[in-house]
């Protein structure tokens, strides 16, 4: 009980309180800067371990998937191959073992195996995945964006103005009128600066309050699901 529950809760309380408390104390209070710097320094190291934890988790779940021959298991094989090959070259290049002297470029300025795979495989694959969005948006625009009611009309109207104003098309649309080339860009700026900002502020403040309350629950030990324990 102590090792699995109480100790983690005590550690969470101590470590979670330090950034909050030290933020409100000046460095003139003895020990503040020492404790704050130590905790923040360790946080950088612990983040690295969190990454390692993620890698271990991916390996475990992928191996399980392959062993049980679950649907899509060949993708798990390719994921593990990519992880080990690229990760292996990345680690060797980062710690500079043998011929792998440097992550982005070797000693002679040429590409390392890691940088070659990044430039010729990883980057194009990532870009291709993201660019598929353009095709889905185009299809959705034709088939789903319908003016069914007033709300829909307002949404599509705003989207039209912003899309026009965010390209030179907005300048062409009314450019034949005196001073007309700035009309749509101005309306676009107004939409972004006033209604958009008002909505974004609501979202940002709401999310911040939610994050603060959740953090407080974790620090005070009310929220314990991250320990695998049930809430009490």
């Amino acid at each position: 009980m102590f090792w699995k529950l109480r100790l983690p809760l005590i550690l969470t309380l101590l470590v979670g309180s330090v950034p909050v408390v030290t933020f409100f104390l000046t460095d003139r209070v003895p020990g503040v800067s020492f404790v704050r710097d130590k905790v923040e320094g360790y946080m950088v190291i612990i983040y690295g371990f969190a990454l390692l934890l993620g890698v271990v988790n991916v390996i475990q779940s992928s191996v399980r998937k392959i062993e049980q021959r679950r649907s899509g298991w060949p993708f798990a094989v390719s994921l593990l191959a990519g992880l080990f090959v690229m990760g292996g070259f990345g680690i060797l290049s980062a710690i500079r073992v043998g011929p792998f002297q440097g992550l982005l470029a070797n000693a002679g300025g040429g590409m390392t195996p890691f940088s070659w795979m990044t430039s010729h495989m990883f980057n194009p694959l990532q870009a291709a995945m993201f660019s598929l969005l353009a095709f889905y948006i185009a299809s959705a625009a034709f088939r789903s964006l319908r003016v069914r009611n007033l709300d829909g009309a307002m949404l599509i109207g705003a989207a039209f103005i912003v899309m026009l104003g965010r390209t030179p098309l907005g300048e062409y649309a009314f450019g034949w009128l005196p001073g007309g080339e700035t009309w749509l860009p101005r309306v676009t700026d107004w939409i972004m600066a006033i209604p958009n900002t008002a909505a974004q502020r609501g979202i940002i403040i709401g999310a911040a309050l939610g994050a603060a309350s959740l953090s407080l629950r974790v620090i005070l030990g009310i929220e314990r699901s991250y320990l695998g324990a049930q809430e009490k």
Partner: protein
Amino acid sequence: MKLERLISPDRRILYLLIALGTAIPILVRIGFPVSATPPVEAVFDAIAQFDADDVVLLSFDYGPNVAPECSPMGEAILRHCFERRIPVILIAFFPVGGITMAGEVIERVLSEYPAVRPGEDYVFLGYKDGAQAAMKQMGVAFANVFPVDNDRRPLAELPLMQRVTNYSDISLVVTLTTNVIGDWWINLVNAQFKVPIAIGATAVSAPKFYAFLDSGQAIGMLGGLKGASEYEHLLVAAYPHLRPLYERPGFYTAMKGMDAQTVDHALIMLFIVLGNLFYLLAKRRKARPSAV
């Protein structure tokens, strides 16, 4: 053709039109005019006021999926700094490809400025995991987070880093961001250390950052490809000798990318209009009483 087929056309036709609308303007330059908006001008003007005594921190907080939007921003800002001999510190906080994005931008721009000296005119500190913790600790000392640069040289040996300890020695932070890392630069670094922040955001995340512009927490913003093209436009106007570079065939720039984006936006608007037109026609036909 039946109305039902027009309402719900073969997706492949739409995909083909978008593919052509993207490829043709990239292959054959249209050259739509570009004019700068106030958030972009604010970033440009801030950097235009700096000189060799200032230091700009450029953070690569994006991955390859948004490189066509964010890399031209990084390149244009780096060129602007090198033109004005402003020292630059480059870092990467984005875990999935941030360091390679930074490396590619530096390599491209450095090839144009052979006189720029590593360690003096610029320092590339590399990638660090755990952006929030690293950002906070950099407020104490950069060397606590990055004891060596990306080429493993101790910071104490680099002339530029001998005059930079923490954020108090930085004139401006520019974050090229696709996600929450941009938020942290504002609500951690600007809020706690009062460093001016400029944002280079993807078009998708730009609307969120307008709230920080209005509150004064960010001095300006380059929003998406349009923002990047506006910065390039200002840069070429201020430094005309860069024009041949930006007009060179085969050299990707945001101004060229804007041609494709403009055509695609026009196509998507056309799709919305046609989709609604066919939808209304079908609705009217359904409402009409049968002729039988």
